[in-house]
């Protein structure tokens, strides 16, 4: 038998979006009533769709992007953080509910809604099995993943491979996927929404369904919206995911009276290479050098403890650290002895035999930067080099400077010196719609929409406030996608 190719993808690839055949297919798609319309094309959307088809529902999925860029932010993910009591082929040891709970409480200001957060953790325990059952492949912890090998499970090939697997499963389950289609309006009547307006090509269609699942992500790619909370600083942010996450559906829901959850300025953001593209740079543009050197702002001054904790726990604080600096730019510096301790930056580094020459290359004041490095070096311990251990918290700290560097504080004194300009790279925003335990969207008056559900980043503010745990966005998307799909299907097929 010839290998199956993904027929829906082949179909989408070959279709000229204005061809008569494609228009006819769209007309036929939108002519029929569906049990469920899922808005979005990332992890939460696909999990919702699969969870609903498991209960026999007929699902239409509206993906904003073309086939080749499908999957939203999930394209750039790599792993999921779930609680588990035992090691297995893909995690190196137990990571209990209690430990995950403590980790979640230790970031930002803790969980935003403790009841929903606890529910997420509880449900996370069955997520990996469900994912395997729906086609997801895993990889054992290898060199690149070992530091998260106990707490996080890694998808074989990463997030796009996961999305591809889910699409294959969805295709077999009969989910219909429309690519390159934008939901411009939700037609809400009272506490119900039975149709949404979809724009595809230059035409408008009406998708009719008994339930609607909104899994369309945050608003991080909408610079204008970001600037409502961040002012002009937002213009200097890099958006790590696709341009499509403009919050159009979120805005519709808020306009229809949905209550918000999460902080306006809440987001998951990391330090990315300032030379990287404004959008969709994903994982390859982030900088892992920060714990092994110092980071200064435009004025050549340090502004945060670079050695606060191991990088997987602290990498997500650096987006906000940089966002608070003038021009939202920083410069991460290291010297020759640290050069091989972290993943190589994709654009390489600027290098020079002295700090002042490096300062010139980076566009910083050479006198100030030389002084910053001198003061930092003097604050390092004389035996720092013998106690230095990059594998874990080594307690090699500075003395007498503010901010201190509380681990891995080696002097920068081995040329050549390296530097890379960094900016905040936003992964996703937290402020979204409030939901109850059935993933139904809650309204400002405390009532619920009867048949409108939310899953994934669009409702992550119910759980996260400001900080982030690596792999937890996928946990939220998977847990709440399963709930939303199940509840929507039960409603639609009852």
């Amino acid at each position: 038998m010839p290998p199956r190719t993904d027929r829906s993808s082949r179909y989408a690839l070959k279709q000229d979006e204005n061809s008569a055949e494609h228009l006819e297919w769209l007309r036929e798609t939108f002519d029929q009533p569906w049990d469920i319309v899922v808005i979005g094309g990332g992890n939460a959307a696909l999990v919702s769709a699969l969870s609903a088809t498991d209960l026999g529902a007929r699902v239409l999925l509206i993906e904003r992007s073309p086939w080749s860029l499908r999957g939203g932010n999930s394209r750039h993910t790599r792993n999921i953080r779930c609680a588990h009591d035992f090691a297995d082929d893909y995690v190196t040891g137990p990571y209990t509910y209690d430990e995950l709970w403590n980790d979640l409480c230790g970031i930002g200001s803790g969980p935003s809604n403790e009841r929903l957060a606890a529910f997420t953790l509880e449900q996370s325990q069955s997520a990996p099995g469900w994912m395997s059952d729906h086609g997801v492949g895993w990889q054992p912890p290898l060199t690149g993943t070992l530091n998260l090998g106990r707490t996080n499970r890694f998808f074989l090939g990463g997030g796009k491979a996961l999305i591809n697997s889910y699409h294959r499963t969805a295709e077999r389950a009969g989910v219909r996927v429309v690519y390159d289609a934008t939901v411009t309006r939700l037609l809400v009547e009272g506490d119900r929404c039975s149709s949404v307006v979809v724009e595809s090509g230059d035409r408008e269609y009406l998708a009719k369904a008994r339930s609607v699942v909104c899994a369309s992500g945050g608003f991080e790619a909408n610079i204008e919206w970001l600037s409502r909370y961040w002012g002009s600083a937002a213009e200097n942010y890099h958006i790590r995911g696709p341009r499509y996450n403009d919050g159009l559906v979120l805005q519709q829901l808020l306009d229809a009276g949905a209550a918000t959850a999460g902080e306006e300025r809440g987001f998951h953001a990391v330090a990315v290479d300032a030379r990287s593209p404004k959008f969709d740079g994903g994982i390859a543009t982030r900088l892992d050098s920060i714990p092994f050197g110092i980071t200064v702002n435009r004025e050549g001054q340090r502004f945060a403890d670079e050695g606060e904790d191991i990088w997987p726990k602290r990498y997500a604080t650096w987006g906000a650290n940089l966002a608070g600096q003038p021009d939202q730019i920083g410069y991460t510096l290291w010297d020759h002895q640290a050069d091989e301790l972290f993943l190589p930056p994709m654009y390489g580094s600027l290098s020079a035999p002295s700090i002042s020459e490096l300062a010139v290359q980076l566009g910083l004041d050479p006198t100030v930067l030389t002084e910053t490095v001198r003061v930092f070096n003097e604050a390092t311990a004389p035996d720092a080099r013998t106690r230095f251990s990059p594998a874990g918290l080594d307690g090699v700290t500075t003395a007498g400077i503010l901010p201190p560097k509380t681990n891995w504080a080696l002097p920068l004194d081995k040329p050549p010196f390296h530097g890379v300009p960094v900016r905040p790279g936003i992964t996703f925003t937290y402020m979204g719609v409030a939901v109850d335990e059935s993933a139904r969207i809650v309204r400002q008056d405390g009532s619920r929409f009867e048949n409108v559900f939310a899953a994934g980043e669009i409702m992550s503010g119910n759980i996260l406030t400001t900080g982030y745990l690596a792999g937890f966005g996928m946990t939220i998307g998977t847990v709440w996608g399963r709930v939303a799909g199940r509840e929507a299907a039960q409603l639609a097929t009852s």
Partner: protein
Amino acid sequence: MPLHELFEEANRQLVICNACRYCEGYCPVWPALERRRHLTPGDVAHLANLCHDCNDCLTACMYSAPHEFELNPPQIFSKLRTDTYDRYVWPRVGQVRSTRALVGTALSLAVAVLLLAFRLALHPHAPKGSPYGFIPHDALIAVALVPVVWGLIIMTIASLHYWRDIGGSWSELAHPVTWMNALSDGARLKHMSGGGPGCDYPGDSPNNLRKYFHLTLVAGFGLCFASTTVAAIEEEFLNRIPPYPIISAPVLLGLFGGAGMLVGCLGLLRLQQRRNLEATTPRMSAADRVLVWTLIALAGTGVLTTVLRSTSAYAAILLIHLATVVTCFAIAPYTKFAHFVYRSMSIYKDRLEAAPRN
């Protein structure tokens, strides 16, 4: 594309890969890349030949076109491999560069050998069904041995040059256990499995069809080789002169081997026709086709020789088969047949590198 441009492009892509590393579960190429922070032309050649072209990294890549990073490791690796195939064989003419050059070589050689064979065919006495009815034993051995020895010399020199260029040292070559493991990895196509679920080949869903067809082809080739070896032993040491009965080791091994090769070849051809062309290059596709058709000619004429051995067509088909065998051996180093040599060297090197250090 000139080599320095090829290297620049490979380096551009692989630096991004090395900052991402999502593919490390698919095959040893990516862990091998992780061990190299700064790439040399030898490094990229090594990675390219370690690649078994499963395409899984391309379908998993969020940076493939239309993303502006435009990553396409299978394609750049294909370009680098054709460069390897061209670079190390002597003389550097035609080679995989052009299908026409190869076909020309094959045809001219075939004609030459055929003419020779027909002249020898005038020899009248021998039992029916025996090759020596047409060609004296010693002449046959000589005609077959010359290209075999030539090919072995050419490929040995090529592989040693390649070994030096990918950063190997002579002393590192002396690890018999590692050699056994590496050759076993290669023969079993261990790395043509996409980390478990299979290759995204020819489309974008993982499956093991190409692996199975390739294994069938190699196993068939092995059986044919075994058939020849057994026949030589029977003849030289046991004084049993062909023709051998149907139920005999040489005939059965040859028939099953030939059938395996044909099944493998036709399967691979069919898959290749449906392949995602963005993941390869026209030159590599041409090289694949030439190799597969060569092997089809080899196996097809071999099977026909056995099937028709008691008919009047025997003489003609035997001569065609012998000419094909000789031609295939002669052109082997210049076709993609040689790929397994470079791949074996790279698998061996990878095993040395990846071995836990004490």
